[in-house]
């Protein structure tokens, strides 16, 4: 086993950071369901401690040389020795800080957003469940343990998407999310079981060492890498399993911010980074990942061009940004991918939380409607949103600029320029659709609401509570904006921190030339300007270039017909095809033949029963006749 001896402080912090949210989940479900304030207090208290522990761990281990592993063997069934415990290395130290920060901010924000909801306690219970699962996922020492929490994260996603379970679309979306990610997870499951069968160990440290895989044929390695990647595709909503994520926006907005943009969907990318040395041993698999990342990135960006729903635009952009991360990792840019994950978590959570403020106030998701109602008058969210969008587009000096730059750098070292070109197109589209949204919101078209109309008629009654809600919701926005502004400047120390463990194994990315950065910046500016021309300048018709081509518009807004395809698959092939066939077989063939045998028995009994008239006299007659005949027979 690799690693230095465990430090008691570390272990205590780890246990506190993971087990407290679980305890609060149980406590809320069992004891405090009827007391919303106490539930929220428990949940936020536990996540605060988790945050403090994570930061402490990061600070304590900033000069970490080799991964630390604390583990016990949980199941010691013969043939199945699986370590269960914690692994500490730069990657997951970074990850737990990101996760606990966003969890903390979102839970605070939810105090305002979810105020007065009948399921307030339930909401915080699920949030705690998610925090527990996500923190444990990040700290898992073995693939099996990671899978364990991977599924639990999926469960909390299901529960939170369908949180407003009286709404049909919400439950439908939750189900879709669970089943689609499950489809990916099954591949992951098979993949790691195959690995286990061939290597006998699922410890992440072990899998990442070259020695462990020495005896395995390259084709098998590629196969298991691809299978495990299936789980990533499902969780991070990559092509072809990408359509669940936009639907998942049916959940409460803080949930979208936490699970479906910043942390849970990033778990896929995290897994990629986690097993990066393992994956990079199979060049074929790596190029497949690169291709899938690129396809998802481009598809999702085109979908975002035409959406009118503010949350869906950000959802598509999440898919495409995750695509960027996977491209970066697939291209070998370990740092670029992880760094983009970090910055993206910050600015995407920010964008969602801002949208949440608008949605909470105006109760609509439509960007034109929001604009008409005067969303631009809300100063803090609007400024934060512009900041977030600018970071998303990759404008300096915001965090997104630095991480995109790193990605372009890693793409540019690839021999084939196609990937870089695709990446640049992606940068352009990203800038265009994010500023399309911003300009629509900022500059309402001709039909503006009367200027003197009250901003929020629905919330007038409870002025003090309202103010509290606004403040509670504004605080995370300000913090996240600050993070978005400054995080980019920490690129170098982070790179050093993350790279420490990797350079040791000779996997650090090579330095690239600078022209791709310039091109990316130029294209981002071009995207923003195109958006300005079409949506922003005075007298603009607010019609994008895609809207002018109806067939393209249809293709994009129907999400490239991927959803139709799945609908058809489930309805026709599964429901009306195999399922009905099996059911009919059960009823007609198996039951039919069994019932046939029974009926046959009954029928033949009935035939024989005709001989039985029930008349005692006939029987006597027959008896006598037989006796007489017997007598005659014996006599002669």
């Amino acid at each position: 086993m690799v690693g230095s001896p465990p430090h008691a402080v570390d272990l205590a912090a780890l246990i506190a950071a993971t087990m407290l949210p679980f305890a609060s989940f149980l406590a809320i479900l069992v004891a405090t369901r009827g007391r919303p304030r106490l539930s929220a207090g428990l949940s936020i208290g536990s996540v605060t401690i988790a945050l403090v522990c994570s930061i402490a761990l990061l600070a304590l281990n900033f000069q970490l040389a080799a991964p630390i592993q604390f583990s016990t063997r949980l199941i010691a069934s013969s043939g199945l020795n699986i370590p269960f415990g914690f692994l500490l290395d730069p990657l997951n130290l970074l990850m737990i800080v990101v996760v606990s920060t966003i969890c903390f901010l979102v839970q605070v924000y939810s105090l305002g957003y979810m105020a007065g909801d009948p399921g307030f306690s339930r909401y915080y219970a699920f949030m705690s469940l998610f925090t527990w699962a996500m923190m444990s996922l990040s700290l898992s020492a073995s693939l099996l343990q990671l899978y364990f929490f991977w599924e639990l994260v999926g469960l909390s996603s299901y529960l939170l998407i369908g949180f407003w379970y009286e709404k049909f679309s919400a439950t439908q979306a939750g189900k879709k999310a669970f089943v689609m990610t499950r489809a990916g997870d099954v591949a992951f499951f098979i993949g790691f079981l195959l690995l286990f069968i061939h290597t006998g160990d699922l410890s992440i440290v072990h899998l990442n060492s070259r020695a462990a895989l020495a005896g395995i044929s390259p084709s098998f390695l590629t196969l298991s890498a691809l299978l495990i990647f299936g789980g990533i595709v499902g969780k991070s909503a990559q092509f072809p399993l990408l359509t669940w994520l936009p639907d998942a926006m049916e959940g409460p907005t803080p949930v979208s911010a936490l699970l479906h943009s910043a942390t849970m969907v990033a778990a896929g990318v995290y897994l990629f980074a986690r097993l990066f040395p393992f994956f990079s041993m199979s060049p074929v698999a790596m190029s497949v990942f690169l291709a899938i990342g690129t396809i998802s990135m481009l598809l999702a960006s085109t979908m975002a061009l035409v959406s009118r729903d503010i949350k869906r635009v950000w959802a598509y952009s999440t898919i495409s940004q995750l695509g960027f991360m996977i491209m970066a990792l697939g291209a070998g840019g370990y740092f670029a991918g992880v760094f983009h994950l970090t910055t993206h978590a910050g600015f995407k959570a920010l964008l969602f939380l801002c949208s949440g403020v608008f949605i909470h106030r105006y109760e609509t998701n439509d960007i034109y409607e929001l604009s008409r109602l005067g969303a631009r008058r809300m100063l803090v969210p609007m400024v934060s949103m512009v900041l977030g969008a600018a970071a998303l587009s990759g404008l300096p000096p915001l965090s997104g600029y630095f991480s995109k730059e790193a990605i372009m750098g890693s793409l540019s070292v690839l021999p084939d320029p196609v990937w870089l070109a695709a990446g640049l197109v992606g940068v352009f589209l990203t800038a265009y659709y994010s500023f399309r949204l911003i300009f629509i919101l900022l500059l309402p078209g001709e039909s503006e609401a009367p200027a003197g109309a009250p901003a929020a008629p629905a919330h007038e009654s409870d002025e003090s509570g309202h103010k509290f809600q606004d403040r509670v919701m504004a605080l995370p926005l300000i913090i996240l904006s600050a993070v978005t502004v400054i995080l980019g400047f920490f690129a170098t120390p982070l790179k050093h921190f993350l790279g420490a463990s990797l350079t040791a194994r000779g996997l650090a990315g090579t330095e690239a030339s600078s022209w791709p950065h310039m091109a990316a910046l130029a294209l981002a500016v071009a995207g923003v300007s195109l958006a300005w021309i079409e949506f922003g300048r005075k007298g603009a018709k607010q019609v994008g270039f895609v809207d002018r081509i109806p067939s393209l518009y249809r293709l994009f807004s129907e999400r490239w017909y991927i959803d139709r395809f799945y609908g058809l698959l489930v309805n026709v092939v599964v429901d009306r095809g195999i399922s009905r066939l099996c059911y009919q077989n059960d009823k007609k063939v198996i039951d039919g033949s069994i019932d046939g045998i029974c009926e046959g028995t009954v029928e033949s009994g009935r035939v024989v029963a005709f001989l039985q008239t029930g008349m005692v006299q006939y029987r006597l007659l027959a008896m006598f006749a037989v006796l007489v005949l017997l007598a005659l027979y014996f006599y002669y």
Partner: protein
Amino acid sequence: MQMEPASFPFLSAILLSCVVGMLTIMLIPEEKHRLIKQVSVVFSGICLLLTLYVFFAFNRKLGGLQFVEHVSWIPSLGISYFNAVDGFSLPNILLTGIVFFTGVLTMWELNTRVKEYFALYFLMVAGVFGLFMSMDLFFIFVWYDVSLFPMYLLIAVWGTTRKEYGAMKLTLYLLAGSALILPAIILLWAKSGLDTFSFVSLMHPGLFTPEVQKFAFLLLFLGFGILAAVWPLHTWSPDGHVAAPHGVSMVHAGVLMKIGAFGILRVAIMLCPLGWIYWAKFMAVLAVIGIVYGAFVGLMQTDLKYVIGYSSVSHMGVVCLGLSTVTVAGLNGAVFQMFAHGIMTALFFSSVGYIYDRTHTKMIPELGGLSRIMPVASGFFIMAALAGMGLPGLANFWGELVVFLAALKVYPLFGVIAVLGLVVTALFMLRVVQKAFYGPANPRFAGLQDVSLWLGTPRIILAAVLLIVGLCPSLLFNVIRTASVPFMNGLLR
């Protein structure tokens, strides 16, 4: 095989508490419902405590047969009253104890023919306990039938949907099963030439020729396979589940189906290992078809209990797949899955029972929005559904994990197909949850009460067991491997 004689006949005490409970109930006047139920709870509680004691007192280091009780009964035929537990039967005995106790609590609100119901129920459970602990082939057969015949009455009298059909179908199927088992047992008895039904004496490798083993194994596999709902002999089980009253459904799906799988393991596999190896692939094919097929048919169902019934077919396929791998891991996983599935279906039926008693329907389209009206009762059902999907943290995950691991090792293709069945299972479980429990609340059920603490006790117990075993699987694995490892080692030698 290592044998540890019992200091006190705990196993007989378990049996006796069922029988004495039955007799006591029969002595209570018909109309004293409350007293009958209290007596039932007391006796089933004693039973549960005894099984818990046996489970925790079982020496996991020593393994082998423990708590052995041996009394010769008919020496001329070699029949003896021979009870013992080993690593395979111990989880099943614990399962029976838990399901028995919670089944009594689930039927707390029964009002018709209370006395007869509980008397027959105790008799049925006595048969099940007897079968799990008996080490004598003759007694195994007797207990098998003892547990079957009360089942017919319980379903036909207290059942609900198409109860006569369901009861008759179940009885005929299972009698057909015993018609296959009996000749096989007699064949083994005759061919051994030892004049004994004792399991320990018959379990010598090389006692039977390969031909005898192959033939006997097939008979036993099909005979017990009917009870384990092996495809295509499964159609009695959904019909039976649906027709039975809830407490009986719990025992039926939770424990009786395990008898089938346990019979395959104890009698067919352990006595005819060569036959097992010969037919293993055949078993695997049936098991994989069962897993996928059960899930697909489950998609089409509109009755809550039918959904659970078909999910049982699918899950028992997992057990059978584990048994078919001829590996230690496969056996471990199969026995674990038996336990997990038993607890899970008991939780399912217990929740459905509660809901049905209130809403008087179990048709999914007529329910809807129950989460708003009875959040706790719905929560238990949803938890069982999550367990059925193999969610980590609940018991079923470990059973499936280990079985699939073994299957992927031995039959990669079947393993992959079976794992893909998980997606379909997830789809149909979530569909049921969505249609029955989510959505706008149905005004028809607006005034209904959510579950109280006392009426919720059986579900709390079952859910707690699912969670505890799910978080600490070694609790069971440590027991099971005391039987599976020596058995497979003996086989390989």
